[in-house]
């Protein structure tokens, strides 16, 4: 890709990547640093990257940078299971949308990343496999379990509301 292609990538995907990073890390500074370093790497390797694959390249770089950062900060949750629902988590939910945000925050980072890659960016299972390095079965099972858990939380909140 050329320098112009790179700038097109900035224009098209910087906001989405920032949203993905912000939702994943829940930290503005971390998300900003990850986006900047991801684009920095894209710029360095722009000649080897096909402009058609610029988005997946960016998200792949950003995702693995986030994993590395979380490992360094020991903030990664490797349980692979949904956290237990607590009473306080759903007690003061003003609305379904806000509650959805909160339930999203309760997911593990891997679950959250997969949900966002699927829903926000519209990636297929195969593309998520490519970005995250997980296998197809892991992606599929994790996404299905996460949705079932989210559904359970949302239903319970609706009952409360």
């Amino acid at each position, binding site marked *: 890709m050329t320098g112009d292609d790179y700038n097109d990538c900035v224009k098209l995907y910087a906001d989405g990547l*920032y949203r993905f990073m912000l939702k994943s890390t829940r930290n503005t500074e971390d998300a900003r640093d990850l986006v900047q370093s991801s684009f920095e790497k894209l*710029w360095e390797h722009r000649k080897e990257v096909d402009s058609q694959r610029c988005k997946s390249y960016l998200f792949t770089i950003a995702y693995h940078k986030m994993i590395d950062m979380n490992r360094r900060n020991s903030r990664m949750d490797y349980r692979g299971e949904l956290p237990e629902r607590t009473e306080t988590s759903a007690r003061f939910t003003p609305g379904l949308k806000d509650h959805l945000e909160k339930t999203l925050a309760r997911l593990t980072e891997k679950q959250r990343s997969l949900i966002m890659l699927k829903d926000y960016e519209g990636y297929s299972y195969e593309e998520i496999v490519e970005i995250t390095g997980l296998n197809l079965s892991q992606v599929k099972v994790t996404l299905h379990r996460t949705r079932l858990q989210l559904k359970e939380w949302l239903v319970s909140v609706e009952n409360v509301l």
Partner: protein
Amino acid sequence: MEINRQNYETAFLLYIDRELDAPGRAAVEKFLRDHPDLQKEFDGLAQTVQVAEPMIFPGKKDLYRKEEPKRVFPLFRVAAAASVAVLLAGGWWLAGNIKKAETPEKISVPTATVTEKNNKSGDNRTEHPATAQNITEERKDIEKSGKVRKATGGALLVKNTKSASSSQTSMDKQQANETEVITGEQAETPDMAKKQTVVGLQDAGELKTPDAPILIASKPPQQEIIDKAEGIPPATTDAYYADNAGDNAISVFAVNDKNKTISGIFNRLTGRSATKEDKSRKLRVSVIQISY
């Protein structure tokens, strides 16, 4: 995949994740129509789909980059660099030649024995004998040039590979490409050098005089003069003739009236005493302008 009450949940999730093709989606929709009691469960799963909210990256403008233009090395710079390289190489070559000329090789072989071999080329040179008057005029002009002023005390024999007739008529502003001086073994004082006798180009007897001319540049010397000169090794005379093969070559060849090579030429040309290494080495003076 046929959807039934055992696997509908997976089918719903695949539908929500947009992983089904058109027939698969149609199958799920038909299954929902056939089983309306599962519609609520389907809606509950559909609610888990996150809606992307618009977000703007605050540092977006800092991400834009401008590709640096490729450096184009201007052609004139290449030419200038090449010129400098050529000048340096030329200077180095000239410096090397001057240094080499300042350290004459020792000549120790007594008598040249190449008379017969060089007679063939000598025949051509003797077709146009030079007169003493012409030679003297040429000597004076060369003295005026001052470029070989140091050689005033020496007795020199000068050779020009051009024929005498052509040289006499067209020697105005002729550029002699090369003048060669072969020094002898012993350095001598200028006073001693004055006692040397000039051996002319054609006839050594014609130019015998205590006040030796400096340079005589007219035509090639007779082969016999060079060949009979003592103290010149055969290799030197070979090089001498080879060096003067060019049209504009002028060589200075020093012999005395006894046909012995004259030493001390280096001293007179360079203004310094010859070192041990300098003795008997060649001193070559290039590009001498001779005007008549």
